[in-house]
């Protein structure tokens, strides 16, 4: 007997994740986290229901908390006061980045032909941040091992940014999924916005520096752009080593 023929078009690798269906037990925040990882399509679906505000709030809280937890690993390289300064800065910086980029996200969803309410747009962004923070927590042991193996701020800074980029890449897929769910006519706008969000977050790490290394002041006394700060740090103009 011959085996059944293979379908002519293979489904995409992540197709099953984005099935837009109701989430069982939507009031349970822990279930929400589980669904965010395994069935993000359910989160997208729930964010367009009447109870979306409660879910969105939980997602934001978990997102900020998750980033702050990762901040402990970031601060562990220097130790001392950085153990609380790094989580505080990362949590606050994430919240600030979300608030700065939210108005433009709302505009860009409209430009993309999406008819979404403000609470749904907020919820999608909070979900993206929450998912990226969950992945960051997953990377935390790896980051800690490397942080104990080197004194180089540049190396660890690049590694933390890399982990964050991987996390936010998955997070921004949620926003793309929201676009698909709501019948976006053009997804290019949300992709442009994603680039803007990443750039704002990069700059935020410079605005709130130092995060890895200790400093005499909580916030920097000199204003710099992200690339300028990185080049100066790599060239050794800034203090390069922790010890």
């Amino acid at each position: 007997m011959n085996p059944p023929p293979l379908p002519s078009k293979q489904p995409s690798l992540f197709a099953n994740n984005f099935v837009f269906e109701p989430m069982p037990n939507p009031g349970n925040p822990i279930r929400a986290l589980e669904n965010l990882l395994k069935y993000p399509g359910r989160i997208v679906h729930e964010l367009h229901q009447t109870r979306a505000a409660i879910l969105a709030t939980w997602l934001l809280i978990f997102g900020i908390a998750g980033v702050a937890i990762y901040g402990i690993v970031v601060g562990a390289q220097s130790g001392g006061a950085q153990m609380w300064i790094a989580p505080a800065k990362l949590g606050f910086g994430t919240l600030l980045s979300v608030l700065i980029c939210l108005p433009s996200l709302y505009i860009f969803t409209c430009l993309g032909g999406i008819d979404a309410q403000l609470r749904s747009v907020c919820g999608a962004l909070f979900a993206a941040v929450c998912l990226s923070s969950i992945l960051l927590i997953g990377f935390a042991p790896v980051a800690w091992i490397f942080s104990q193996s080197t004194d180089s701020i540049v190396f660890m800074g690049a590694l933390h940014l890399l982990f964050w980029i991987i996390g936010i890449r998955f997070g921004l897929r949620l926003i793309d999924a929201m676009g698909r769910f709501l019948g976006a006519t053009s997804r290019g706008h949300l992709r442009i916005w994603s680039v803007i969000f990443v750039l704002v977050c990069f700059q935020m790490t410079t605005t709130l520096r130092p995060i890895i290394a200790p400093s005499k002041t909580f916030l920097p006394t000199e204003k710099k752009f992200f690339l300028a700060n990185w080049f100066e740090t790599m060239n050794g103009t800034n203090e390069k080593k922790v010890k």
Partner: protein
Amino acid sequence: MIKHLKTLLRGEVDARCLEKPNVRWFIAYCIAIVLGSSVYGATIGLWRAPLQSVFTAIKFPLLIFLTCIGNGAVNGMLAQVLGSGLSFRQTAFAILMSFAVASLILGGFSPITLFILYNAPPLASEQAIIGHSVMLLAHVCVIAFAGVMANRRLSGLLRKMSGHDTTARAVLFSWLAGNLFLGAQLAWNLRPFIGSPQLAVQFLREDPLRGNFYEAVWRAFRHLFV
């Protein structure tokens, strides 16, 4: 009103809304222009001084309205001569709609430009020129993006109204050419918007009607190459 503005941003405005222009929507577009462009204008002027940000917040929507009024007659005539079938009133409405789209986009970007400004080295610092360059580039990109999106929406609307791609394109380019030509001159008359560190903060420069944007560009060109 918000629902209509969202429809406008999505580019799903029905051609019927132009066939019978509604006063309520007219007010909505004016409010969108005033709010969006004022807030964005404030972030432009803030680099120079807080007072400059107030001046620019007033002048940005003023520039838009003066351009619409100044070119109102010729835009209406061009629309009719090129066979779009739009009346003067419908032309004014369509152009206001596109400026409303641009203003909403600019308003949405204002927290981001404010954040860039916050991170720019201050005027008195050695790195001020880098800060000024980044700010200028950011504003140029944002305004260009808002302009492109607004004109895409306007182009779609003209296509629905006229029924012909060629007519819609001809009308759009003729309006663009006229608005850019007059808009550049009005921006020159209403300067400063960003403000120069060497000059005092003023609402308008001395004798604002004297001088010409195109002559200034020609002089700069001659200084560079001749």
